[in-house]
């Protein structure tokens, strides 16, 4: 079946309309907060959510089968001033003009929020508290510098949760969650501090759950009203069905596939309204949806086509709301990406192959609607069916950059190393882009982006940035005084270790504030352990509390840089350290010959031990440094080499590096080679990347590759790609993803963006519409080396 007319219409709207900011949620939230001062924060949050659900306008858009809007616009971003409003105030006048992820907003809207919303939050937001509390010694390094970047964790909510559909939401229904909390409450007397906290917690969950029920009730009423005036008999039927769905779910456990999918969306939209979250992951969609599909299918209640249409409607819902973020955050997470990761395939909790009909329908939905959301991930295990591998490589060959391909066993091992029970580890899903995660988990999976390039320049420039001459690193002897390669290596590692330390300080500062200021009663309701123990997610209430993830940016650049110094200065002696320093300070101007030599030194990504061994040394050191710290819950911090678009802003603040890279140009992402330097085969690039000990980077690792379209245009070519992936995974690696769109197409899209609005490309760990990327980001993608032969 081809895509239905209804879905195509919605898709056209999604592709062509710019997202619009709605302040409705912010307005209602603020009004509510004005009335609840003095009450416990979790109760205030829950009441604000209730008031929002009770009062915000209800919108059922044209032809929708799944309902629930975040505001008055179909493509809509919301404001969450309790987290931060200052950046909005500063940036909203140019929201529609900024290069990355622009939003529409009218002058009337701007006036309204400046007059009625922001004044209340002055001095009260998370952002302001964070800025007031960040230690002076860290401030210059961690606030909007591109060196240690954590602003998504103090200007935004955490997000990064996978609601537990299997054991909580679909099992109890939100009505059942209320009942469970009432039972718990009946046993508490409040005679201890812990008891009082629990009472507040359960009350906050009850209010939050009732808020969602109220929201659904209002949609049921609206659908009923619309049905009564609808003249088209088909649409009238649909509206009656929508109303019936909204009366049954989310209060009760779903009984049909359609109810389940509506409940899934209601749960999601509740999360969005609560915290404008990053990475509110649907998780293992094929696992929890299949039983409903099978039951309906066996009973003759649903056809495959109908189920496919519903899934595609859901994909559009996931894509229509946008994560409202600052220009800085948008640089790191480019492409209107909400990072709602949906994972299919892999193994069951028992360890058997988990693919089913829904697995394939999810792949098909992404191919058909080409939405950038959900972030579609697949898990490949050694015995995965040929049919599944073929479906996966076929979708890759379409050039959407989906799905992200993950090694089921590596993910399992990463969770085992993070302390999970085997059955839970086997049941892992992806969070965000490439973080192995599990639904019963509280974790900050993208806590900090740490710039390895800065550590290189601090090591070589007496602790100073080349571009600003500001001293933000440790004291360091001048490069000219370094006598051996080991001196250089030590300087780099010391500087890197220092940046890790500041990352930890920034994160713990933010964590402490989150516990106190932004409890998460609604999302806690989706966590079995929080409900059982009466402890909020933000206070470590989940079954697993995994330490925050510090993502290293520029592994390849730093390894290539050390290799260049080792070879040029200390082995071939073509220049001394002073000359190298001067060349970097001059951004290679006047040192073109030296730069040519630097570029010729072996580069990571070609299976060359000379430089790969340095990369492994750095990554092992990074693991040790990050992992030795513990967070507010006593959990070890976790390192990662994942992607996002962080390598571009991180590069922007870095001077030239000894590998021949020019100042301000992008660094390297994840465990990927530096752009264009993987000149051998994809096998060599993979072999380099697989040398990193993936299983200890519980925050995830990422490899991006570009393949020539011709390589995967035939079934046989796709099968070869499948074998390439299998081989990479056999070497223990975790993730790989592919762009297969040719540069001709990408250049054409730059020239005539209107003709390529639905062209999806892989950025780093996720796909998004190419035309929605800034020019710098587009150029960075074009610069990646496209392999023409295996």
């Amino acid at each position: 079946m081809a895509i239905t007319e209804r879905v195509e219409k919605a898709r056209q709207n999604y592709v062509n309309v710019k997202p619009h900011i709605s302040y409705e949620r912010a307005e209602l939230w603020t009004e509510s907060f004005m009335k609840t001062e003095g009450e416990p924060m979790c109760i205030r949050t829950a009441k604000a959510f209730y008031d929002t659900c009770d009062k915000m306008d209800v919108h059922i858009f044209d032809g929708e089968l799944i309902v629930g809007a975040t505001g008055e616009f179909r493509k809509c971003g919301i404001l969450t001033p309790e987290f931060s409003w200052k950046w909005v105030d500063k940036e909203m006048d140019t929201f529609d003009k900024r290069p990355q992820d622009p939003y529409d907003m009218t002058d009337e809207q701007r006036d309204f929020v400046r007059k009625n919303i922001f004044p209340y939050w002055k001095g009260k937001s998370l952002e302001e508290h964070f800025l007031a509390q960040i230690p002076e010694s860290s401030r210059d390094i961690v606030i909007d510098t591109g060196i240690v970047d954590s602003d998504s964790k103090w200007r935004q909510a955490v997000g990064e949760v996978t609601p537990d559909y299997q054991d909580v939401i679909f099992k109890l229904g939100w009505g059942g969650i209320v009942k469970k909390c009432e039972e718990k409450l009946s046993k508490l007397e409040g005679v201890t501090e812990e008891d009082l906290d629990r009472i507040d917690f359960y009350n906050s969950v009850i209010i939050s759950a009732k808020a969602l029920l109220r929201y659904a009730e209002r949609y049921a009423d609206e659908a009923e009203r619309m049905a009564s005036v609808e003249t088209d008999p088909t649409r009238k039927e649909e509206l009656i069905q929508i109303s019936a769905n909204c009366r049954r779910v989310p209060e009760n456990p779903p009984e049909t596939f359609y109810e389940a999918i509506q409940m899934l969306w209601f749960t999601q939209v509740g999360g969005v309204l609560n915290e404008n979250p990053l990475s509110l992951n649907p998780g293992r969609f094929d696992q929890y949806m299949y039983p409903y599909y099978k039951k309906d299918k066996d009973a003759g209640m649903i056809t495959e086509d109908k189920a496919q249409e519903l899934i595609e409607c859901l994909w559009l819902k996931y894509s229509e709301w946008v994560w409202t973020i600052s220009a800085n955050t948008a640089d790191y997470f480019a492409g209107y990406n909400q990072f709602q990761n949906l994972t299919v395939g892999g193994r069951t909790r028992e360890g058997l192959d988990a693919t089913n009909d829904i697995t394939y329908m999810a792949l098909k939905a992404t191919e058909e609607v080409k939405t950038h959301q959900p972030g579609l991930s697949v898990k490949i295990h050694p015995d995965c069916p040929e049919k599944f591998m073929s479906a996966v490589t076929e979708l890759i060959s379409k050039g959407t950059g989906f799905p992200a391909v993950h090694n089921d066993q590596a993910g399992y091992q990463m969770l085992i190393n993070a302390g999970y029970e085997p059955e839970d580890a086997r049941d892992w899903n992806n969070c965000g882009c490439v973080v192995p995660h599990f639904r019963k988990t509280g974790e900050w999976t993208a806590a900090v982006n740490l710039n390895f390039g800065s550590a290189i320049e601090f090591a070589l420039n007496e602790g100073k940035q080349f571009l600003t001459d500001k001293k933000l690193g440790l004291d360091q002897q001048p490069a000219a005084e370094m006598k051996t390669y080991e001196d250089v290596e030590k300087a780099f590692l010391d500087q890197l270790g220092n940046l890790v330390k500041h990352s930890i300080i920034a994160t713990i500062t933010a964590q402490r504030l989150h516990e106190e200021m932004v409890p998460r009663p609604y999302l806690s309701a989706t966590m079995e352990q929080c409900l059982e123990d009466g402890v909020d997610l933000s206070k470590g209430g989940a079954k697993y509390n995994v330490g925050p993830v510090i993502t290293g940016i520029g592994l390849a650049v730093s390894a290539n840089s050390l290799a260049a110094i080792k070879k040029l200065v200390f082995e071939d002696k073509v220049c001394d350290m002073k000359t190298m320093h001067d060349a970097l300070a001059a951004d290679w101007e006047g040192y073109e010959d030296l730069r040519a030599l630097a570029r010729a030194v072996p580069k990571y990504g070609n299976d060359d031990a000379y430089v790969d061994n340095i990369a492994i040394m750095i990554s092992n050191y990074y693991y040790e440094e990050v992992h030795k710290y513990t967070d507010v819950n006593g959990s070890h911090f976790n390192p990662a080499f994942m992607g996002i678009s962080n390598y571009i802003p991180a590069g922007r603040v870095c001077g030239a590096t000894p590998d021949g890279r020019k100042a301000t140009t992008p660094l390297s992402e994840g465990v990927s080679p530096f752009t264009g330097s993987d000149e051998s085969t994809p096998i060599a690039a993979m072999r380099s990347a697989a040398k990193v000990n993936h299983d200890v980077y519980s925050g995830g690792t990422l490899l991006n590759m570009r393949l020539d379209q011709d390589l995967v245009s035939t079934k046989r070519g796709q099968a070869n790609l499948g074998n390439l992936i299998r081989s990479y995974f056999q070497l223990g690696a975790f993730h790989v993803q592919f762009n297969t769109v040719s540069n001709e197409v990408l250049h054409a899209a730059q020239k005539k963006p209107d003709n390529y609005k639905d062209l999806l490309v892989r950025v780093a760990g996720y796909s998004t519409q190419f035309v929605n990327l800034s020019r710098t980001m587009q150029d960075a993608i074009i610069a990646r080396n496209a392999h023409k032969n295996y």
Partner: protein
Amino acid sequence: MDIKGRVMEIQHFSVNDGDGIRSTIFLAGCPLRCQWCANPEGFTPDNKIAWYKKTCVACGKCAEVCPMGIGIDLDLEREKCTACGKCADVCPTGSRKRMVTEMTADAVMQELEPNMSVFRQSGGGVTFSGGDPMQQAYFVRELSSRLYDLGIGLAVETEGYFDFDEVEDILEKMDLIFVDIKVLGPKRHRQFTGRDNDLILTNIKKMRRFTKKRIVVRIPVIEGVNADDFNIRRTAEFVKRHLPNASMELLPYHRLGEAKYEALGMDTPSEEFKTPPKERIEELKKLVIGAGVQTISFK
């Protein structure tokens, strides 16, 4: 409709039919009637019922279900047997056995799937054998194209007795082609196999166009048929001249197929056909090498 073929056996973990670990699909039907054939059940594509007397416990279950009223001793009433296989279904000891089964391409693929990881690890794949698989060219074409699309290595073992143009596309998909020259002399060829070898030799010459494929010309070396110096040297010279890049494999004849002849109620191959001693095979290999052809062995 899924294409069906007639399969004698799918032998997994085959290690002598090409590189690595393979699954060999034996397809029924053969244009030749080699007197020493080890797989006589594959002469024709029809099913046949084998009866292994040694393991038969004479329980009579076969006779109970036989729609033709055949008794335990199948050999007495073979002409009545339609090979419906009901007896094979009920035989508790497996002494009554179907020798050819009709299978869909889907079913074959399903049976191969669990072996794919082993193919990939070992550099192996699937070998089509027989009978002569080219007798079911349509089926080999379907299976080989599906397997090719999965990136699985492919080999074929053929008698070379086919219409070249009709099967060229199949041969194109193969990584490795085994083709037999039983005897080079046309008269002896006809005497022992029932067919002239012009077509076979012509087809082998045509294989020269496959410049990038590995081709192995095989001789089943049988004392009393083709194990003389003259035949082997001449065959090697033929190969050298027409397929200069091919290698040759000398397979010593074995009598392991005899039990099947008995079970099918057929006369066993002549006692005149003898397995050459190892030393003799080594001598013959030297002749081949002397003629300028590489020898190869998948043992």
